[in-house]
């Protein structure tokens, strides 16, 4: 099956219906393994048991950027290839990305208080992730503000691509500026600096959260396609009603749109 095949929403819905149970099951299994490994992971020699916060903070931080990257690719699909499902993908991913970014910020604050002595510091990493969160909220607001999905899609795609400039700033902020946040310890040249006792649960949790995103994203895309079908039917109904109402009565108060 190619991307062109998936341009047909009905085919996409059929594929989503087949994939969703498997993805949900696999996600649940991986979370079970990851959470068990996280619980059994040893304490860090410096951080003690607070290192366990890493197993949820880091996957959410990765996903906050990954989801925006997915939305950026979808935005290219909207602007360049005009793929019918591209803006559906971008719109559906935004609330999920916002939730992951919120979790990255909150769990980071809860990790920072015992380790740094503060919940928040206006350093480059924390501030750039907060900006990412605000951009997610802005995009969601934009989608809600413009009623016509096609017009909203183009504006949101441009905003998403501009916002993608923030991704390398987030990633390299710990290298470019002197930050309270530690530098990269997993995705770095020279390999991870984490011990396997922490690295393996972290990677399992990262895969589990990524599968969770894929599952929720597919389900949210399905909802968005159904929402657009409903909108089309409502418009058909309104047009049919308007053509039934003669010119003499046009302009009189009607209940069009109050479906």
């Amino acid at each position, binding site marked *: 099956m190619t991307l062109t095949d998936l341009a047909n929403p009905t085919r996409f819905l059929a594929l989503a219906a087949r994939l969703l149970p498997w993805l949900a099951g696999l996600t649940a299994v991986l979370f079970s393994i990851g959470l068990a490994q996280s619980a059994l992971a040893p304490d860090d020699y410096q951080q003690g048991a607070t290192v366990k*916060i890493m197993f949820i903070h880091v996957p959410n931080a990765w996903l906050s950027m990954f989801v925006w990257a997915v939305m950026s690719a979808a935005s290219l699909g909207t602007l360049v290839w005009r793929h019918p499902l591209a803006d559906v993908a971008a719109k559906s991913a935004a609330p*999920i990305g916002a939730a992951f970014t919120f979790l990255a910020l909150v769990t980071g604050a809860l990790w920072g208080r015992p380790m740094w002595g503060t919940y928040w510091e206006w350093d480059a990493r924390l501030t750039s992730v907060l900006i990412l969160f605000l951009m997610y909220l802005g995009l969601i607001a934009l989608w809600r503000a413009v009623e016509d999905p096609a017009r909203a899609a183009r504006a949101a795609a441009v905003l998403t691509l501009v916002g993608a400039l923030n991704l390398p700033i987030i990633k390299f902020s710990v290298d470019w500026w002197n930050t309270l946040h530690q530098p990269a310890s997993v995705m770095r040249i020279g390999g991870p600096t984490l011990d396997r006792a922490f690295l393996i649960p972290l990677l399992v949790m990262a895969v589990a959260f990524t599968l969770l995103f894929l599952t929720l994203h597919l389900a*949210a895309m399905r909802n968005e396609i159904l929402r657009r079908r409903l909108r089309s039917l409502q418009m058909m109904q309104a047009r049919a009603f308007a053509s039934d109402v003669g010119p003499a009565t046009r302009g009189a108060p009607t209940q069009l749109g109050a479906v």
Partner: protein
Amino acid sequence: MSLGPYASFIMTSYLMAAAVVLALIAWIVIDYRNQTRRLREMERSGVVRRSGRSATDIA
């Protein structure tokens, strides 16, 4: 398993993550039910797609 002096921070982090993930799942499931219910109501009122296929037919 002892979580040490910062157990409340660790527990709050995990509970917060669980709450947000469950809220996301609930939102998506409720939204799906709402959309399919409204589509069925629309079809029952006689408004159907041009193709004639059910709007909730996803198989």
